[in-house]
């Protein structure tokens, strides 16, 4: 059987039983629920610190009504962060490399922000389609452009996450294949490629965290315009 570099992205399957659900439900299990104690263990303390940091960061620009979204945005952030970071371990499966999963996350949430805006403040939310101070002749073209930009947002959200993670994993696989293949032939070049691999892994850790953050940040921005 020929090796295709995209084989690492196939959903895991054990004897015909798809394991996607298990791999999706594993990351939430890593977060212990806080017990009724004043001083908990170090893991719970770290987790609470992280949750406070994320919630404060996301909720500061939002008004009172936007705070209803705190739970879903923070849990989405934790989920994406965990899934992305766990995918960097060897042999693991990253659900966020599947476009279907990212679109399933992005599209309903974006639609929710859009419908919230259209329902509660329709003229203000439609007013976002025309930036302030545009010259009059440009108005029709600009409204068209802004509408397209609005409608493409869920696609952009999903594809951004998918593409970044897929590209990162592919690069890691390609470079590690090159390293192993070069080892018997030119060991010095192999060492050089190992250095590149180490730097790339550090980059991938950063990208994993940044992409999760960007996804949730953009959603909160879309919410700010509409709530």
């Amino acid at each position: 059987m020929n090796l295709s570099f995209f084989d690492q992205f196939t959903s895991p399957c054990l004897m015909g039983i798809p394991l996607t659900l298990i791999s999706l439900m594993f990351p939430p299990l890593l977060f212990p629920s806080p017990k009724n104690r004043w001083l908990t263990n170090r893991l719970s303390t770290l987790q609470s610190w992280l949750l406070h940091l994320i919630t404060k960061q996301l909720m500061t620009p939002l008004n009172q009504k936007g705070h209803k979204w705190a739970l879903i945005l923070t849990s989405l952030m934790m989920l994406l962060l965990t899934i992305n970071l766990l995918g960097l371990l060897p042999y693991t499966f990253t659900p966020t490399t599947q476009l279907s999963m990212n679109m399933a996350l992005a599209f309903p949430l974006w639609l929710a922000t859009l419908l919230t805006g259209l329902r509660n403040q329709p003229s203000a939310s439609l007013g976002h389609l025309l930036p302030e101070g545009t010259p009059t002749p440009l108005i029709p073209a600009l409204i068209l452009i802004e509408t397209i930009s609005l409608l493409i947002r869920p696609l952009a959200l999903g594809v951004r996450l998918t593409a970044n993670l897929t590209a990162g994993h592919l690069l890691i696989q390609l470079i590690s294949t090159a390293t192993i293949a070069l080892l018997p032939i030119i060991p010095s070049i192999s060492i050089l490629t190992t250095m590149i691999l180490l730097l790339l892994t550090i980059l991938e850790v950063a990208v994993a965290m940044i992409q999760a953050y960007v996804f949730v940040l953009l959603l909160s921005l879309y919410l700010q315009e509409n709530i």
Partner: protein
Amino acid sequence: GPLSERRLMDVKLGELPAWLATCDVSPQGLLAGVRKAWGSYYDKYINVKRGGPAGISMLLAGYCLLSYGWNYQHISKISFLGSV
């Protein structure tokens, strides 16, 4: 005490099939067993006063091994790298 109420670590090897027969294998029973196992792992390695990276690292290493096992059929067919 009676066989059904002893923990797994206290059961002798010869009594293992009998102990397994007394287990509750309904979905609720299995779920309760998983919860108990997770609870004892958590209390022993993570929920300690001066914990470190060891508790979570063992869990993640186990996850890597599990994923390797799940992907074995696929990985073993790669021909150009020798053996896996």
